[in-house]
C-alpha cells in the first residue's frame, strides 16, 4: 500500500492534464524508514525524451542523483515515480515492465483528451515477470 495526500495526488493529476498529449513524469519522495510507504513530496521532472514524447518518458540518472541528494538533506528518499499514459489505460505497458526497477512504486495516471484521469500504483515482481498492483490510500485530512 502507498499512502499519499489527496492534495499531492491532485497536483500530479493537474500536471498530467496540463501536459497532455505528452507524457508527464516525476519523482515521489518519502521516508524510507516508515513502516508504510508514504509520499510526502512530489517533484515534477521535465521529460528528457526528445522524440515520441506522447508515448515515452525518461528521467536521466544525472537528474535523479540531484533530486536524491536534495531530498536526503531533508531526510527523504526516492520511493517511486509517476508518469502519465495519454489516451491509454493506467496499466503498465510491456515497455514499462522491461524498464522497471524493483522496490519503487510506479504510479501511472491515464489521461484522455484533457478529461478525467485514473490513477493506479504498481510494483515490479522479484522475478521481473510483471508489475503487480499496489493499493493507493488517498489521505484527505
Amino acid at each position, binding site marked *: 500500500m502507498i499512502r499519499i495526500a489527496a492534495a499531492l495526488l491532485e497536483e500530479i493529476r493537474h500536471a498530467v492534464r496540463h501536459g497532455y498529449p505528452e507524457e508527464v513524469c516525476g519523482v515521489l519522495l518519502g521516508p524510507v524508514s516508515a513502516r508504510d510507504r508514504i509520499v510526502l513530496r512530489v517533484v515534477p521532472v521535465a521529460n528528457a525524451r526528445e522524440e515520441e514524447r506522447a508515448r515515452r518518458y525518461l528521467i536521466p540518472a544525472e537528474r535523479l542523483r540531484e533530486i536524491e541528494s536534495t531530498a536526503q538533506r531533508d531526510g527523504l528518499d526516492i520511493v517511486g515515480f509517476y508518469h502519465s499514459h495519454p489516451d491509454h489505460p493506467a496499466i503498465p505497458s510491456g515497455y514499462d515492465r522491461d524498464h522497471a526497477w524493483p*522496490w519503487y512504486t510506479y504510479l501511472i495516471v491515464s489521461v484522455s483528451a484533457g478529461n478525467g484521469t485514473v490513477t493506479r500504483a504498481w510494483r515490479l515482481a522479484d522475478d521481473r515477470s510483471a508489475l503487480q498492483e499496489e493499493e493507493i490510500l488517498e489521505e484527505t485530512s
Partner: protein
Amino acid sequence: MSVTIRIPAALKAYAGDGKEVEVAAGTLGEALDRLVERHPALRPHLYDERGALRNFVNAYVNEDDARALGGPRAPIRDGDTITIVPSIAGGTGAAHDGRGETLVEEPQNLAEAMHARSRDVTLSAQEIRRYSRHLIMPEVGMEGQRRLKAARILCVGAGGLGSPLGLYLAAAGVGTIGIVDFDVVDETNLQRQVLHGTRDVGRPKIASARDRLLDINPNIEVIGHETPLTSQNALEILEPYDVVIDGTDNFPTRYLVNDACVLLGKPNVYGSIFRFEGQLSVFHAKEGPCYRCLFREPPPPGLVPSCAEGGVLGVLPGIVGTLQALEGIKLILGRGDAMIGRLLLFDALALRFRELKVRKDPSCPVCGTAPTIRGLIDYEEFCGIPQAHASEAAELSGVPELTATELKRRLDRGDALTIIDVREPHEWDIANLEPYGARLIPLGAIPERMNELSTAEEIVLHCRSGARSAKALRQLREAGFRRLWNLKGGVLAWSDEVDDTVPRY
C-alpha cells in the same frame, strides 16, 4: 584493489540488505561481475537475458559518469567508490522490444517488434528438427520460426474455435499461448471441441487444453486465465500479448475483446460460426477497421441464437478456427496479406467463400476520429442482456406451471390431460413424451392448428426447457383457452425428474 559499490535503495533487498559492498577489481566491469557473483539475486535487475548491462542501469566512478571513462573497461583505483544510479523510463505503446533499448529507435508495428524480438531467442537442435518443414521455406526460415517462438498469442475461449486454433498454434511453435476460459468440459462439447476428450468430461477446459497443447509441443508455454473476461480484468489479461484471437460465442465478450484491443492497440483475429456459416476478419484499429466499424451495435438479444440454441455443424469451427490460426501466424511472421479491412463469409453447405470490404468508420465510437468510448464499459448492459432477462421473466410470470413430477403423478392418477409438444419435428425425433400421449404442434403452427384443441380440455404444453411453450400458452389464452399448464423445465425436466431414459439434448 578494493573498491566500494554503493547499492541503491531499490536493490538493497537483493544485496543482503547492505548499502555498500566491498569488492576487489581492476575495472568497472570486473567490479560489477564480482558484485553479482556474490549476490546472484541482483543479476536479473542489472543484466538482461544476453548478459549485457541493462541500459537503464548507470554507474558512476566517484563523481564521474562511467560512460565517459570507458564504460565497463573504466579503470578502478584502490579506494574508489562506484555508485549505481537508475535512470527511469517507461511509457505506453504495445511494442515490446524486450531488449531494454530505451534510447534507440523503437519498433512501431508488430512485424518490426517481432523482428527485433526474434533476435533474443534461439532454437535448439531438437526444435530445428521439429520445425524443419517450416524452416526450409524461405518465407518462414530461421527468423520466422524464432519470431513464432518469441510470440505471445492469447486465445479467448477454449471451445469450438479455440480448439483447432490452439492445436495449430502449439504445433507451429508459438512460444507463449494464453487461454481465457472458465468452463468445464461437457459431453455436448465433444462433437466439435477437439482439444478435449471423453475422459476430460467434467474437467476445467483450461486443464485439458494445457495437457493437450503441451503433449503436442512441450517446447511452448501455456498460460491459463481461468476466469470470465470482464471489463475489470480484460486490459490486464490482454496487455502482455502480441495478438488476440477471439473465439467467443457471445456478443458482450466480443465487444469487450474488440474495445480492449482497440484501447491497447493490438490486432484482434475475429471468427464466428452459426449452424453452417462462418465469418472471419482481422480487426486492427491502427491499420484498419474494428468490429464496431462493421457492427456498430449488437443485435437484440434472442434474435441471433447461440450455438447452444441454434446448433452448429461440428466441422465448421474446425475450418474457421484454423483460418484464425493462419491469420495469427501471418501477423507474427509479417508475411502475406492479413485479413485487415476484409470480411470473409463461409457457407459450408454451398462450400462457397465470399469476401466483403470493411471500411474504417470515422464516426466509430471506439476507433473513430472523435471516440466517445475511452475505457471499457458494461457490455452485458450494452448488449441488452439484463433487459432481456427481465422481459423473459415477465413473460413467464403469470403463466401457470406444472412440474414434471406433478404431471407424472396426475397421469398416474388417470387424470385426462392433453399433452402438446410445441417443438420442431426434428426435435421430436430426438426425444418425446409420445408414450404419455403427447402430440406435436410446433409453435409456429399453433395459430392455424388451435382448432384441433378444445377449450374444455385440460392442456399441458411443453417444449425443450419451457420458454417456447410459455409463448404458446399465451397465444392460446388470448384465443380463449383457460385450462392451460406450462411444463416447467420442459422435456429436460421430465428427463431429470421422471424418466432418465428420455435423452437430454
